[in-house]
């Protein structure tokens, strides 16, 4: 067993107990990264020397201080939409090539203060706009389970890095499913917290009313560990919530019916024609397993589900068109020459943004423009209210909602390259949680006939991450899907 086979929780215990040094672990991460990343392309930037220097410091503190930080000496990967001071941050875009942020995102800073070491920045669809990581201006990431498949997106780099056992944990962002869908495609546990649970300060803005910082780990226990550190009010983000986070005691000895008293709703609207049969079977089998653990399973209805996709793909691009107005070639990033400020902006943006980003900026600009605002943007905001009410009504009757994460397992690279709308349809099961602001957790529940991971998601009422993590943890005590690793050593790397 190498240090990289350990989960985050096991690794921190081994470090705190002196069985492993941070230098050993960090060195092992960087070696594995150097060996695998030419084939995976999970990383956009590797902070090798800085990480090793921080590991030396961590080892000194582990020797000298009796009370180590919760993550002291643990290496992690960070999606390249989260700023880390003096590490290049591109958001997967050529318009931020060479940008060095002068600050660190609050979520990352809190993990660093707990002792985590950032070993690098991971690949993402440009400005987190995509479901495959193919929209990165720096080339796609490949799925460690099958190199001809996408890892999902937009947090595909962090997902591939954790699935390939390069790091025990990665940070992502989830605006419409960008943590949960890559988690499902890569066989991982992916947490999208409640909107406002984790500060967005230092997260490059895409759709500000939807954006959440989330985690990619192997286990629910590891997700809980990271969430507990990152969560909480931050004066630098006015939308961050001041709500207590009470997590269940996941260390407690498992009982035979740990989910007794928990009501899980299964919405018909999430099992639609066209979904891969093995995905539906995987989810239904996992729901039965949750029932075996004591949960009561009952049908529930979210009648406006079919409108989540059009609502999201109007509101998120509208917010993006405003958020991305700041990329003007003047204050940061490369600049193309022009004879007026307008020409500098239009030329820099036209040359440096990729096609999906341009498409969403134009879609959003259209939805906000005079004559179309009421029909598109305002209408979408009202339907968003109805989607939120669907969840409020459902959570009167059930504690959790169980659903698929995506209609299929990981699809081949290039499968949606000519048809943007078909790529958007990949997000139908993940968008509603973002529109309603509720937390969602994806975790592995099996494999399809081609050996690709199948995931399912649980959703809960706002600020009830404890229910999500407790149920997934109970499931992971009686199954081992989350412990399976891709056979990368034998793959043609």
């Amino acid at each position, binding site marked *: 067993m190498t240090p990289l086979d350990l989960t985050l929780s096991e690794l921190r215990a081994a470090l705190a107990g002196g069985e492993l040094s941070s230098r050993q672990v960090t060195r092992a991460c960087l070696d594995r990264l150097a060996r695998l990343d030419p084939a995976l392309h999970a990383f956009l930037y590797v902070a090798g020397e800085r990480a090793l220097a921080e590991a030396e410091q961590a080892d000194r503190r582990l020797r000298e201080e009796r009370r180590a930080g919760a993550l002291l000496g643990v290496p992690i990967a960070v999606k390249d939409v989260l700023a880390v001071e003096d590490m290049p941050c591109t958001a997967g875009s050529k318009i931020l090539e060479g*940008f*060095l942020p*002068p600050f660190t995102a609050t979520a990352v800073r809190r993990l660093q203060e707990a002792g985590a070491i950032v070993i690098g920045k991971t690949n993402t669809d440009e400005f987190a706009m995509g479901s495959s990581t193919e929209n990165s201006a720096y080339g796609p990431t490949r799925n460690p389970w099958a190199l001809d498949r996408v890892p999902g997106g937009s947090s595909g780099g962090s997902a591939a890095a954790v699935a390939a056992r390069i790091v025990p944990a990665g940070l992502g962002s989830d605006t419409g499913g960008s943590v949960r869908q890559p988690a499902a495609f890569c066989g991982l546990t992916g947490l999208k917290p409640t*909107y*406002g649970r984790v500060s967005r300060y230092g997260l490059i803005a895409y759709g500000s*009313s*939807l954006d959440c910082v989330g985690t990619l780990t192997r286990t629910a226990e590891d997700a809980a560990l990271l969430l507990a550190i990152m969560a909480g009010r931050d*004066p630098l983000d*006015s*939308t961050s919530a001041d709500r207590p986070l009470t997590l269940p005691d996941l260390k407690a000895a498992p009982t035979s019916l740990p989910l007794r008293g928990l009501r899980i709703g299964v919405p018909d609207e999430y099992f639609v024609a066209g979904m891969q049969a093995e995905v539906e079977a995987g989810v239904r089998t996992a729901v039965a397993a949750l029932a075996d653990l004591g949960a009561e399973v009952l049908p529930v209805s979210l009648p406006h589900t*079919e*409108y989540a*996709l*059009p*609502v999201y*793909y*109007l509101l998120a691009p509208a917010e993006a068109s405003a958020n991305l*107005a700041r990329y*003007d*070639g*003047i*204050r*940061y*990033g*490369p*600049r193309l020459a022009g*004879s*007026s*400020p*307008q*020409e*500098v902006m*239009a*030329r820099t*943006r*036209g040359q440096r*943004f990729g096609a999906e980003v*341009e*498409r969403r*900026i*134009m*879609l959003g*600009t*259209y939805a906000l*423009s005079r004559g179309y605002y009421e029909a598109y943007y*305002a*209408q*979408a*905001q*009202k*339907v*968003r*209210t*109805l989607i*939120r009410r669907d969840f409020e009504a459902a959570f009167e009757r059930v504690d959790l909602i169980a659903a698929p994460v995506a209609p299929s397992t990981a699809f081949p690279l290039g499968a949606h390259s000519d048809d*943007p*709308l078909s790529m*958007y349809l990949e997000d139908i099961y993940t968008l509603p949680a973002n*529109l309603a*602001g509720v937390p969602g957790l994806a975790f592995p529940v099996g494999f399809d006939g081609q050996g690709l991971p199948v995931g399912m998601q649980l959703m809960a009422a706002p600020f009830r991450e404890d229910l999500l993590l407790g149920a997934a943890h109970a499931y992971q005590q009686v199954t081992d899907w989350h412990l399976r690793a891709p056979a990368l050593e034998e793959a043609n790397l």
Partner: protein
Amino acid sequence: MSLSIEEVRHIAALARLELDEAALTRYCRQLASILDYMARLRQVDVSGVPPAGSALAACPLRPDQPRPGLTVADLLKNAAEVEAGQFKIPPVFEAE
């Protein structure tokens, strides 16, 4: 729905995106097909439903107190052109 190339040109101008004819034609076709899909939203009865601008019920404000922030040097270090401690851009007004 149909979207004219002139409308797409207008949107690109509003969005400050300089695009060539091939890109405008491509986006014209793609945006029309995406907006077609969006049309199903009009079926929803939203009478009396308030718009949701955010997932939050309320957004608390903090007191507006001065505190240390990033320095001018921090803020200028990523700019393509800087002069005398300021961002430099082409002239906004033509010289007489």
